[in-house]
């Protein structure tokens, strides 16, 4: 079907087109709820079975970086919503501004993720790659504070007392950590790609008060990715933080 102006040939009106695109995106997001949902179920069953290992594993995540990432993503949702507003109110020059801000924040999130993943790799916390939760405490890096190492050592010892198979169960935790944050990061990368495409179009002045559907529906996708992280953060990072 060909396009004449903003209207694609299978539609009768722009309203029908916008209605279809929006409903389509919402339905796609429902599929994403169920897609991530399968991993949330796996997480639930495993955390129920191995609470100690999940607690120990969760405390090995960097709370500062995780919190920073959460804040970054929330602000990026704000800037994305603002870009939709600028398109709706025909502030054509501002649309790319907010899109660029969203892009920067999105890339910041991914950058922080890379740092976190690298940390895990250095600490032998990547499943199937010589996974060993005790590696860090047995081979502390020069920059590690002795109190932190001692705390973690104590935690691991207590964990092993409660669960002799702590290492295997913690590997399950980290499989879920990488699986869920990895899938999330993949969705972020796709989102970054889509927003880049929006940016290019917006720089050409493509979006107006009468035609801004792509901005809105890609915004919906971006907000959804934010929502997934809103749940991932407490479930992965805040399991047993109160242990001192």
């Amino acid at each position, binding site marked *: *079907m060909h396009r004449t102006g903003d209207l694609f040939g299978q539609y009768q009106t722009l309203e029908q087109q916008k209605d*279809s695109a929006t409903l*389509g995106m919402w339905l*796609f997001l429902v*599929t994403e709820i169920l897609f991530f949902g*399968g*991993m949330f179920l796996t997480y639930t069953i495993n955390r129920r079975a191995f609470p100690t290992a999940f607690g120990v594993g969760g405390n090995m995540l960097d709370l500062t970086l995780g919190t920073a990432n959460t804040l970054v993503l929330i602000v990026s949702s704000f800037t994305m919503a603002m870009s939709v507003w600028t398109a709706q109110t025909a502030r054509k020059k501002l649309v790319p501004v907010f899109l660029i801000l969203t892009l920067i924040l999105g890339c910041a999130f991914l950058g922080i993720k890379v740092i976190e993943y690298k940390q895990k790799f250095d600490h032998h916390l990547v*499943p*199937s790659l010589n996974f060993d939760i005790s590696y860090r405490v047995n081979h502390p890096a020069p920059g590690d504070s002795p109190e932190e190492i001692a705390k973690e050592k104590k935690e691991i010892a207590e964990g092993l007392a409660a669960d002799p198979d702590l290492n295997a169960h913690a590997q*399950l935790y980290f499989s879920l950590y990488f699986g869920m944050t990895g899938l999330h990061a993949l969705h972020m990368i796709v989102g970054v790609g889509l927003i880049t495409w929006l940016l290019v179009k917006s720089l050409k002045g493509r979006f107006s008060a009468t035609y801004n559907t792509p901005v809105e529906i890609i915004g919906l996708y971006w907000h959804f990715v934010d929502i997934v992280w809103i749940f991932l953060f407490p479930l992965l990072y805040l399991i047993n933080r109160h242990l001192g």
Partner: protein
Amino acid sequence: MSGTSSSPGNEYQLPREHYINATYGIRSWLLTTDHKRIALLYLAVVTFFFFLGGIFAAMIRIHLLTPEGALVSPETYNKLFTMHGVAMIFFFLIPSIPAILGNFLIPIMIGAKDVAFPRLNLMSWYIYVIGGCFVLYSFFTGGLDTGWTFYTPLSSIYSNSAVTPAVLGIFINGFSSILTGVNFVVTIHTMRAPGMTWFRLPLFVWSHYATSLIFILGTPVVAITLLLAGVERMFHLGFFNPAMGGDPILFQHLFWFYSHPAVYIMILPAMGVISEIIPTFARRPIFGYSFVAASSIGIAVIGFLVWAHHLFVTGQATYSALAFSFLSYVVAIPSAVKVFNWTATLYKGSISYDTPMLYALGFLGLFTIGGLTGLFLACLGLDINLHDTYFVIAHFHYIMVGGAIMGYLGGLHFWWPKITGRLYPEFLARTAAIILFIGFNLTFFPQFLLGYLGMPRRYHNYPPEFQVLNVLSSAGASILAIGYLLPMVYFVWSMRYGRVAGPNPWPSTGLEWKTASPPPTENFHETPVVDWEPYDFVNRPDLGLAVKPAPHLAPAHGDD
């Protein structure tokens, strides 16, 4: 030819321009966004996978002619039933009616020019083909021996077959379903012609709407499940591995959360076909339209609540099993509503036994048997004995073959004139339908007996006392094969030599019969405005039928 509205000697001509000859060349087909051409692209690949699955079935039945197994080694036998299941379920049954008939008909039935997202529609087809290629790669580089259910830890650790490309292929194929589901739901919501209200929609559309709900809500779960199993296999993770703290039962929950609703994906579209065929060949409005429509949604929703009946023998507590057993009985109710309503539609109808009607009548009986035997399995005590026996196999083949495939073939015959502009040869088609019915029952009824007597499924051999029934079943399969091959031959023949059908050969009442056969690319030369009720044979003088009002219905302009 019975049921035509043409006067004797009236020869139709094919329209000068229609969707098939509108543009030429392979690019115009491979890059099409016309839902009708996409439907035919699907027809080609779906038929290929049906053929492939059928070959595996033939090998299974030949192998089971003797108690020790006549044809292949035990390991190869495992591969045969696995590949038969994977090809048939994921690449034949699930796409068949929705991707072919649904794609072709839904926009026309609602008076639209195309689906809401035509390019996404084409992408769905490519995704289907790519997924299929991965699975074919698996089949031809060692095959697959885990059963189509991929239970762990066999699939994730111990199997030496080509599991990873297969799960990848099915994962990819899932997105084809998901996108088709999204496309259909949006199309039905936003693209209906003026006057086409929800309760004027053909029941075929309702059933595809319900199917699409399952596509959207269920498929993503099997996608993540197979992804997890594949990743576990590749990287030796432990989600489903007991030695590493993992849980095979978790895999089963995740897998069946989709795969049970998947069986409703396979049957609901066929039910939609039956709801179109029976009123047409009984010349009667469907009995209880709103109940049939609501029952489609009911099946889709309740179908999501019963999956753990596949896990009855895994050590479930009685309370949990009772809940799922009860819900499994409940889900039979909307299906029963449909069967009652179809039967009531036949009552005092003016029935003609054209080929589509033969398939529909066959569906009524065979689906009923298949559905009722499902209740046997839902009964906890019986399931202990029947689980993983040939009883289960007979049950689901009665529904999937006796139900879904007969619905598919009935639909293909019913809409063939619309799709191609030509009629298939009626006598040969009726003969094939009868051969198929006989072959089907001979193949699968003995399997109920075998299962009840205790023959396990997925076994390459069996005790000698089961041989007679197995031979009967294999004999039936050879007759069934003829029933399938005949349509393949005469459909192809008809595309060139079949009688030109005209716009409404049966005749029937849907919007699709108001446009030319084959339709123009844009479906209608003018957007239709709908002001009639569905299946209203009484108030449609343009059909040329002498139909009296049905006794059980109030007159159209109610006066008592």
